[in-house]
């Protein structure tokens, strides 16, 4: 049970990390040096700092390789947020591509374990 809870925390943290990408995109789409630009970029940096702190904490209880393999889930969050917030389309091709990438990431990370 304890372990499940840790993995839930890990994925909440990764979800939080994916919000940074949303801010990054909003900042990029805003007019350069405008208020929204600074606001979103500031938000991005804040998210990254908080993420870094909690990532260090999580690494104390989860193996490094497991944590990095789990990071592959950000590919899914990119697709989800892209669809929900930026109205991007999800095609079968993208879904398969994402699956292949995630498989590759897990393989790379697991190779380091050996």
């Amino acid at each position, binding site marked *: 049970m304890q372990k499940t809870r840790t993995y839930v925390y890990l994925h909440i943290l990764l979800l939080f990390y*994916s919000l940074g*990408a*949303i801010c*990054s*995109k909003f*900042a*990029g*789409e805003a007019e350069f040096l405008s208020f929204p630009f600074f606001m979103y*970029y500031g938000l*991005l*940096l804040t998210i*990254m700092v908080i993420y870094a702190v909690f990532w260090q904490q999580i690494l104390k209880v989860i193996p490094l390789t497991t944590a990095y393999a789990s990071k*592959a889930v*950000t*590919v899914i*969050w*990119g*697709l989800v*947020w*892209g*669809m929900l*917030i*930026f109205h*991007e389309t*999800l095609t079968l*091709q*993208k879904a*398969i*591509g*994402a*699956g*292949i*990438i*995630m*498989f*590759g*990431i*897990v*393989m*790379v*990370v*697991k*190779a*380091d374990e*050996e």
Partner: protein
Amino acid sequence: MKNEVMYGILFLFSVFISSVSQILLKKSAGKAYESKIREYLNPPVMIAYFIFFVSTLLTMFAYRYVPLSLGPVLEATGYLWVSLLGWFFLKERISRKKWIGLGIIIIGILFFNL
């Protein structure tokens, strides 16, 4: 369409320099320092964080035209850069399984973008 390609390349460059920054930090982590302050305030570490900061800016600019769903997909090239840079500068081994995993990531990225 052309913008998406050009800014996609900018995004890839940003991921590359972020990987360079990671290798710099890793190289620096292996050394012994006089004090805790020196651990963070030495040229390689400061340069690494500066490069990382620049990377977040470039990524943000790239997101002007790069779809959010594509972001994490391109970020997956980071595994390739870190592995290659680690091999070249830190003499880290890349096992056969790792090469295969990296290849799968690349295939996934190409498939995603067909």
